[in-house]
């Protein structure tokens, strides 16, 4: 049986359809044959009566033709007699000759014998008439008539008995016919019910796995890959699809697992890289800290300044004092906002140190609105900018290099401008500097370690404004101006 369920869907559906139709066809054929046979039997019920009526008519014909011949003696009537005699005789021969317990069999037996006697009498009568033996044919005619009456009477009686019997049979048959009808309806109902049942089972066997598959697919669509395997009940097309689905689920699950593992690996790698970078930066910082210990340097320079004063070297004293101030600023003011004035002083010190270093090559111009000097700003901003101007702008210009520092008010802002007349820069470089994407190597040099990206970032964080710092350069050899906009303190 399982072999049937494992057949392809098309074969299953077709075979069940054919089976159902075949069964109904079979029942219908059987019913038609049964009903036909029964109808035939019922039709035959009154056949005996019809035959008896025919026999009666044939008997009448014999008697009438004989009487007609006796009356007229025409050849037509004689011919008619012969015909009717033959017809009646052949009918009589077919009558039953057996004695049974059925009254009509015995009556038939009697009629047969009487009819044969009657036919003999009639023949003798006809013979006597042809021989013109008047007395003889009259006597025989009377005998024949009497026998005719007896036979007629017997046929009538038999007809009645037959009719009664046949009516009973008919009633019985009709009743059975009706029961057959009822049972047929019942059987048809059973067969149809059976077929419907089989079809329902077939449809269920097809639809149920499909439904399960659909449910599982829906769960998978909702992201639940752990919905479990769908069991393939049979090896039909649905079974094949179910198997494929199960395999697909397993494959997807494996694929996702692999993907997750590779992503995990990548993340770990990135984490490692970042840690490395942080460590590197930390090392760089520590290195720089080791290089410049401001307190030590400041104390040392102070000692140098006092020595120079005691020895009367005023310029040396001043120089060392300036350097000492410069470093003191570095030590003290790095983590808190400072006034513009402090920053400008630092730039003054720095320029002074550089001019000592480079024999007064750098021309330094200052246009400062004194009222704005108390405005707060982040520490260590202006000096790195000036340092950049010196290093990248005017270093190679000798004594032609000019650095201009301006502090002025523009609308509601304090504007600090650091300008050089150095070699300037192109748009791409400005862009790189502003975005902080300029490579680290290019910023290095003999600076104090604070790069432009650091300066830009701190100004932006302080003002909370992306446009608070600008770099303007009109191209190669046309100098660079860096503008810082600070909010005007209303206090």
């Amino acid at each position, binding site marked *: 049986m399982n072999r049937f369920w494992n057949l392809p869907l098309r074969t299953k559906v077709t075979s069940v359809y054919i089976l159902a139709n075949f069964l109904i066809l079979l029942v219908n054929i059987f019913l038609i044959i049964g009903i036909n046979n029964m109808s035939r039997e019922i039709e035959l019920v009154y056949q005996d009566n019809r035959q008896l009526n025919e026999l009666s008519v044939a008997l009448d014909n014999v008697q009438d033709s004989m009487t007609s011949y006796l009356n007229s003696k025409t050849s037509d009537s004689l011919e008619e007699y012969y015909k009717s005699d033959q017809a009646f005789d052949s009918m009589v021969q077919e009558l039953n000759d057996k004695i049974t317990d059925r009254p009509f069999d015995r009556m038939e037996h009697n009629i047969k*014998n009487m009819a044969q006697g009657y036919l003999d009498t009639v023949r003798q009568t006809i013979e006597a008439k042809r021989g013109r033996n008047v007395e003889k044919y009259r006597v025989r005619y009377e005998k024949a008539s009497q026998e005719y009456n007896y036979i007629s*009477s017997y046929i*009538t009686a038999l007809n009645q008995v037959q009719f009664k019997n046949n009516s009973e049979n008919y009633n019985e048959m009709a009743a059975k016919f009706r029961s057959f009808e009822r049972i047929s309806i019942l059987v048809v109902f059973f067969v149809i019910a059976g077929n419907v049942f*089989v079809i329902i089972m077939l449809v269920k066997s097809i639809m149920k796995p499909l439904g399960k598959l659909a449910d599982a697919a829906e769960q998978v669509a909702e992201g639940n890959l752990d919905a479990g395997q769908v069991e393939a009940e049979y090896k039909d097309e649905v079974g094949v699809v179910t198997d494929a689905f199960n395999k697909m689920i397993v494959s997807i699950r494996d694929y996702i697992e692999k993907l997750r593992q590779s992503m995990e690996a990548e993340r770990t790698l990135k984490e490692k890289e970042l840690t490395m970078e942080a460590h590197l930066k930390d090392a760089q910082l520590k290195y720089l800290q080791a290089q410049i210990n401001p307190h030590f340097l400041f104390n040392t320079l102070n000692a140098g300044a006092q020595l120079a004063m005691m020895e009367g070297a005023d310029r040396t004293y001043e120089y060392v004092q300036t350097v000492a101030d410069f470093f003191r600023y570095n030590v003290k003011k790095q983590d808190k906002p400072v006034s513009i004035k402090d920053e400008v002083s630092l730039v003054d010190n720095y320029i002074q140190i550089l001019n000592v270093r480079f024999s007064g090559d750098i021309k330094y111009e200052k246009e400062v609105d004194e009222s704005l000097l108390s405005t707060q700003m982040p520490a260590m901003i202006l000096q790195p900018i000036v340092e950049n101007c010196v290093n990248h702008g005017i270093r190679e210009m000798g004594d032609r290099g000019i650095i201009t520092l301006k502090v002025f008010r523009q609308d509601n802002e304090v504007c600090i401008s650091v300008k050089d007349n150095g070699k300037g820069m192109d748009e791409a470089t400005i862009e790189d500097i502003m975005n902080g994407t300029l490579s680290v190597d290019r910023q290095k040099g003999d600076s104090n370690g604070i790069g432009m990206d650091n300066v830009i970032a701190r100004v932006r964080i302080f003002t909370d404004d992306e446009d608070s710092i600008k770099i303007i350069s009109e191209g190669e050899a046309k100098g660079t101006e860096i503008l810082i906009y600070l909010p005007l303190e209303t206090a």
Partner: protein
Amino acid sequence: MEERIQEEKLNTQTGKKKKSRRNGFFFLSLLLTAMAMILLLVFYQSYMNSFREDKVQKVYDRYYVMIAPDRKSDFMQSVYKGAFERGEKDNIYIDLLGDDLPEDYTKYDLMRIAIDSGVDGIIIDADESEEMTGLLMEADLANIPVVTLLDDNTQATRCSFVGIGGYDVGREYGLQVSDIIKSLRREYFMTTEDAKEEDIAVIDVAVLVNSSEPSTSQNIIISGIKETIARTEQSGSKANLTLVSVDNSNAFSVEESIRDLFINGDVPGIIVCLDELTTTCVYQAVIDYNVVGEVSILGYYNSDTIINAIDRGAVYATIAIDTAQLGRYCVEALEEYNDMGATSQYFTADVTLINRSNVSSYVRKEEQDEQILESPSEN
């Protein structure tokens, strides 16, 4: 993982169960369909067989007919029954001719029909008429043996006569008449103070005889009665025996003739009836004309009506005839004649007188006989 395997195992088991259940349902529905079809087939087969069964009949070797004008009377039916049962034993069918025919044919017509039908034997309640004689001779020519029943035809050749001992019956009637007269005489002497022998009235005894046919058997009975009365008159009983003709020429005439007898007013003291119908009619007339006790009826045959009448005292006595024996004798005579070519010329059936003194024992005996007869068929 293990849980999943467990679950899948469980699923597989449930799947197997479902499959086997589905297969079961599938087979069940096929079985149901097949059973329904078999049911239809069986029903159809039995239906068709019922027609065929009808056609299978018992076939008999010989066919005898019984012809009796009073074939519907209990008496003749009882004789026929006896003959039929005897015939069955030898696979002979016996027909009571005329029963199925639409016309009420006379026994002569029926005799002719029987001869023309080529039956194997005829049992007929004959008479001494010329027509009957001619028909008997015709039957003889056609080689059909005839047994005369109750009434004989002595002029023609018949193979045997089966009847009752008419003289014995007559003697019984005579003795009963004598008994009645004696009891009346006794009653007269006991109730009348100066009773004289010569004052005793002569009792009229009317014997009802059939008018249409001269019957030998009735004549013998009457002569038996006459002789017995004559013999008993010597002992003092006085009776005036008259023969009253009852018209039995057509239907209902018997009853009318008997009524006439009562209407005329000259009702006889004793009425002797020589057949069943006459007895029943006289009994009814006695009741209707309120002469119960005044008229003593001597009946014929032991039908239920007559037995009841004896029990009530309306009929003085009746002659019980062993009708089954009569029927049996007829068939045996024909069988013997057909087999051996000859048989005894004369068979007489047993007769018993039933009066008030033995009616109850008779009824009991009859009931016992009936039970014995019925019990084998019940089994």
